[in-house]
């Protein structure tokens, strides 16, 4: 645990930096993703690369790992000017990378997957004990002969990390590693990373979770709009201070004010089971809950535990639910499609902004028509009332401060945060009695996220029922009144947010909620 304190101060007599980037620039059509970025990594340093979505973090690490080529700028590896043309060459130099999305073969064993990731694997008989040994040394216990298909998300990530460690990396790049982990799994990962750093490996840690960066990292480089805007010691900054550096302005965080008067149940789900919505998706099994007018029920859980199946069953895009399994405003909605459910007062914000919640090639006005056509009265005898449609879109843009081109602009031209504000505004302005919203602030800047949270709280206060499905536990703790956990297609009981312990939620997210008591979890 204390390894962290032994890490060196920046450059204090430690010779040459492990990696030195100077003036890296990369342009994509329509955006300058990296603009003269400088970055220095020392041996044994856990260095955070911090920034909002679109700040240019991913582009930068892809350049380091040889996936992309910079348009300009220089790179020194252990003091030597170097060109990295491919991931293969990066691995040869000793650079390993764990991507946010895993690249594992489900039907192969752990050892086979590790072998496939190595440039020189050797025989399986030699590999198996080495996988076990490397795993043990860094607290990444893995059974080499288990099939990846049966592993949890956290275990799969361990396979990816072990695969990198097998090549004795001098620099390990981790891209948002905790976004798929429970709090307990994340804590274990941090210990592994600290141990690695203690052995002199440099770690470039990409994240936008401020608390974990403060707990883990020795140095931080903050990016905004493709540029480095600050370099600091995250241990000496507050989370709010880091956030301000990240978004470049101050913002107010929304919070519950408690004491909500609950009304009648708007959404009643009873014994809902459904097969997976997509191939290799997760089916849901016997899910029951209800959401009352005036409250926000949060559904926590690591992605891939049945959220998509649940959401498509609730939206009506796949109406395979048994009769009466879903009741909206007292009506049996199980057999109804999205249009009929909207008539009953349901509004829905899907996870994917572009291509599900909106049509990228169409204007904001057309996208307002997409779901508002009935409740906003935008049609007359099959014809579109263009004036009313524009007015409706204009109201959304004004009420939710959607920046970017006005109602005639294509949805695809807006930034993620602004498009999300537009989509949420579109649903909210239709005065829904029930709102189902999925991952509303995913990839959205902190300012927009705060605005979205406030809008959801206001809607609940006006008497709507809200079901909030999110991976972001902080978000749920901040605005949900009650929280339930979806794990492996099963839903836990609901907990009042004010009383629940985070450890308990974390264990439920890991599928262990019933077996282990909260007290034992602290010993992990």
């Amino acid at each position, binding site marked *: 645990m204390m390894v962290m304190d032994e890490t060196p101060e920046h450059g204090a007599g430690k010779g040459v930096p492990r990696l030195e980037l100077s003036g890296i620039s990369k342009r994509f059509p329509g955006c300058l993703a990296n603009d003269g970025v400088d970055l220095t990594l020392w041996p044994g340093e856990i260095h955070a690369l911090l920034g909002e979505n679109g700040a240019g973090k991913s582009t930068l690490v892809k350049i380091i790992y040889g996936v992309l080529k910079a348009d300009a*700028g220089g790179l020194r590896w252990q003091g030597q000017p170097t060109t990295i*043309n491919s991931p293969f060459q990066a691995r040869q130099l000793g650079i390993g990378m764990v991507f946010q999305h895993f690249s594992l073969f489900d039907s192969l064993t752990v050892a086979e997957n590790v072998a496939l990731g190595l440039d020189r694997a050797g025989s399986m008989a030699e590999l198996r004990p080495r996988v076990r040994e490397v795993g043990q040394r860094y607290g990444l216990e893995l059974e080499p002969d288990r099939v990846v298909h049966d592993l949890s998300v956290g275990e799969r990530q361990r396979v990816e990390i072990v695969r990198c460690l097998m090549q004795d990396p001098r620099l390990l790049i981790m891209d948002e590693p905790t976004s798929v982990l429970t709090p307990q799994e994340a804590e274990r990962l941090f210990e592994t990373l600290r141990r690695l750093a203690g052995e002199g490996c440099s770690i470039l840690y990409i994240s936008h979770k401020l608390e974990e960066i403060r707990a883990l990292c020795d140095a931080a480089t903050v990016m905004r709009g493709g540029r480095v805007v600050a370099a600091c010691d995250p241990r000496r900054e507050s989370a709010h201070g880091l956030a301000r550096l990240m978004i470049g302005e101050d913002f107010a965080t929304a919070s519950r004010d408690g004491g909500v008067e609950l009304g009648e149940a708007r959404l009643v789900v009873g014994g809902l089971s459904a097969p997976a919505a997509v191939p290799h998706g997760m089916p849901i099994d016997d899910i029951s809950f209800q959401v009352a007018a005036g409250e926000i029920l949060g559904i926590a859980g690591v992605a891939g535990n049945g959220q998509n199946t649940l959401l498509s069953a609730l*939206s009506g895009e796949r109406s395979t639910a048994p009769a009466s399994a879903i009741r909206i405003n007292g009506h049996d909605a199980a057999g109804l*499609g999205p249009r*009929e459910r909207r008539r009953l007062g349901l509004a829905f914000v899907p996870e994917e902004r572009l291509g599900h919640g909106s*049509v*990228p090639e169409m204007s904001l006005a057309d996208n307002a028509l997409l779901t508002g056509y009935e409740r906003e009265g935008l049609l007359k005898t099959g014809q579109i009332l263009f004036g009313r449609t524009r007015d409706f879109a204009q109201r959304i843009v004004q009420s939710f401060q959607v920046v970017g081109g006005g109602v005639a602009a294509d949805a695809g031209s807006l930034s993620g945060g602004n498009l999300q504000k537009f989509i949420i505004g579109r649903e909210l302005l239709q005065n829904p009695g029930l709102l189902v919203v999925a991952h509303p602030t995913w990839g959205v800047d902190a300012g927009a996220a705060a605005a979205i949270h406030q809008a959801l709280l206001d809607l609940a206060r006006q008497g709507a029922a809200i079901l909030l499905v999110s991976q972001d536990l902080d978000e749920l703790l901040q605005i949900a009144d009650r929280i339930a956990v979806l794990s492996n297609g099963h839903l836990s009981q609901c907990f009042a947010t004010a009383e629940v312990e985070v450890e308990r939620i974390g264990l439920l997210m890991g599928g262990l909620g019933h077996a282990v008591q909260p007290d034992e979890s602290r010993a992990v």
Partner: protein
Amino acid sequence: MRFRLEARERPSRSLVYGTPVLAVALTMACGSVLFAALGHNPLAVLHAFFIQPIDSLYGLAELTVKATPLVLCAVGLALGFRANIWNIGAEGQLTLGAIAGGGLALWAGDDAGPWLLWAMMAAGLLGGGLWAAIPAYLKTRFNANEILTSLMLTYVAILLLSYLVHGPWKDPDGYSFPQTRMFADGGMLPVLLSGTRLHLGAPIALLAALAGWFVMSRMFIGFQIKVVGLTPAAAGFAGFSVRRLTWITLLAGGAMAGLAGLFEVAGPIGQLLPSISPGYGFTAIIVAFLGRLHPLGILIAGLFIALSYLGGETVQITLGLPLAVSGVFQGMLLFFLLAADVLVRYRPRWTTTTTAGAAVAGEAD
């Protein structure tokens, strides 16, 4: 210096309408080279191909006669194409429309009332629509690919027509030629301009294009068609039924092709023959894309392609060139159009590698 294509930030709106013009220009340029290679004066051929056919009132009327079935088919097809429903079988639907309407005319005989023509049009719409209903059913029920089913049904339709005119519907006084009796006057489209073959079908095709424009740009159903074509997941989210739109677009496209077929047999032809169309249903696919799937663009494209039919005949007669010239022109046009459409999303760029002075910037791509 290297040439490469670079993705545009967003599709170029001006080029969406510019590439058809570019494609026409390239077709003419390549055609000229081809004619020069065949030993003809290119300007004379182009004049004979594009100008001579329409330098008289009769020629203009002929142009409209040829454009009528093309526009009718293409407007219907474009509805489906906008929704990613690829009906390739307009030729078969056209044939079935001709069989249904023509059969009615043969059955009614010589002394039918003025209702006959209207009933024939209804039969044409119905026949084409029913033929398109088969791919629609197979698609919505079994998820069978409509490209294959509609195309295969085209050959079934042509063989059915062939069977009828060789067999049960053959004119008993026709010296065993494979053709039916001529339709009675009441079963023929009135000629609008004496001395020409311009018939009632032309203004109806114009109305159909206007109706298509109205549906696509003003009606909610047109909006739904566009959303399904662009982003099917968003259509599902909005509650638009892909199934229903599949039915609607295929039926509408089939019905309009069927009407085009009826206009051919009740207009210029006047009877049923084994071959009633020089591939209008297939050429309409080119017309639809050349017209950017926009009904009013299709009007212009339909007239242009009709000219390529007339031009082919003219150069055959006046210069002795093969009739296949029409097909070559149409083929080149579609080829250049598809190629030029790359420019809508990409811009050509000459790059120099000298900017990459620093160590990281790559030489290789």
